[in-house]
């Protein structure tokens, strides 16, 4: 092994960072190598003088003042921290309130939209009867038959109103109001039968 490798081991040995195996090998080498022994002596002197170099010694008063200043800075830091935390909490509440408001507004808007959608009639009585009258057209006989069917149905449903003959159904709002969906569907079926016959 070359001497430059032992030089590193000598440095590690001064720092007590050399393992037992390497220590033994180094001791054996140093017994035989004058150059490495001289090198070890030089490093030993450097270590000794370095450890004993002048150190700045601050007075006890300085350290007392140092700790006072540190305590004061710590106190100010804690006060700042408290202010920042309070401010963050205020902002949290503000954002929370804004979020709740936006959710509420969105919900209200959606509800309104749904409600107006419900206003649209699923079934238009007027349109239905209007369609049939259009189909009947100028056929007076068919119109008479259709009206008779409607009339009879109304009487059967028990509305209790005596209707005048040849009363056009569209003119009487009570007739509209009294007919249910099922009754209208039945009417349609009856009218179709009449038209066929």
């Amino acid at each position, binding site marked *: 092994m070359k001497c430059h490798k032992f030089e590193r081991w000598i440095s590690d040995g001064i720092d007590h*960072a050399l393992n037992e195996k390497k220590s033994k090998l180094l001791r054996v080498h140093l017994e035989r190598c004058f150059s490495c022994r001289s*090198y070890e002596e*030089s*490093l030993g002197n450097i270590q000794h*003088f370095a450890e004993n170099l002048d150190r700045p010694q601050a007075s006890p008063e300085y350290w007392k003042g*140092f*700790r006072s200043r540190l305590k004061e800075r710590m106190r100010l830091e804690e006060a700042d921290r408290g202010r920042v935390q309070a401010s963050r909490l205020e902002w949290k509440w503000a954002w929370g309130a804004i979020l709740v408001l936006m959710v509420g507004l969105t919900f209200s808007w959606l509800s309104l939209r749904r409600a107006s959608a419900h206003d649209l009639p699923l079934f238009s009585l007027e349109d239905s009867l209007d369609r049939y009258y259009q189909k009947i057209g100028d056929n007076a006989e068919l119109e008479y038959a259709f009206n008779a069917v409607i009339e009879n149905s109304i009487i059967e449903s028990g509305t209790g109103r005596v209707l005048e003959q040849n009363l056009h159904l569209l003119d009487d709002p009570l007739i509209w109001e009294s007919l249910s969906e099922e009754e209208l569907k039945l009417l349609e079926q009856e009218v179709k039968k009449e038209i066929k016959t």
Partner: protein
Amino acid sequence: MDAFSDEALVRKAQGGNNEAFTELARRYQERIYHTIFRFTRNHGDTDDLTQETFMYAFKSLKGFRRKSSFFTWVYRIAVNHTLNFLKKKKQEQGREEFFENYSYGRETESGDSSPDVSSFNKELREKLEDAIESLPLSYKMSFVLVVFQGLTHNQAAKVLRCSENTVSWRMHKARKMLQAGLRPWLSGGGHEVP
């Protein structure tokens, strides 16, 4: 507070006990100060950096996960702050500035009574200071932590966030450079450069 271990004090400080943190600072203030001083060579800058080190530790304490010891963690903060400071300032303080700003008492070597030996040693110390100052920053950082602060290679590696092998290598290179620079003052010339 004196009776508590560092770990116990850290737990208390993390729970909001400022006295516990102040005690931790008291335990390590001088070592941190001396480490930083080795680089700034100036009391004012050292004082500022030492305060900044402990304030940073105080602010970051809640995030300290105790994977390393408190002193390793605080050393790391001190090293980072010092390196950042040096990068900003880009300064290399000469020896004259060191003696101008140095206003505290000194520890001096004892035992040598002969004037010749004493002056020789004084000259060697001065040359050694110069030589350490002129080391590359990474070598100097390892040297200061291991030789002046007594850290093991493992501890220094944790502070410097490198491997133990890297610390060992840097120590070897630093000593080699010092030995080459101080050859006339050292007994035993070591290996001649081929």
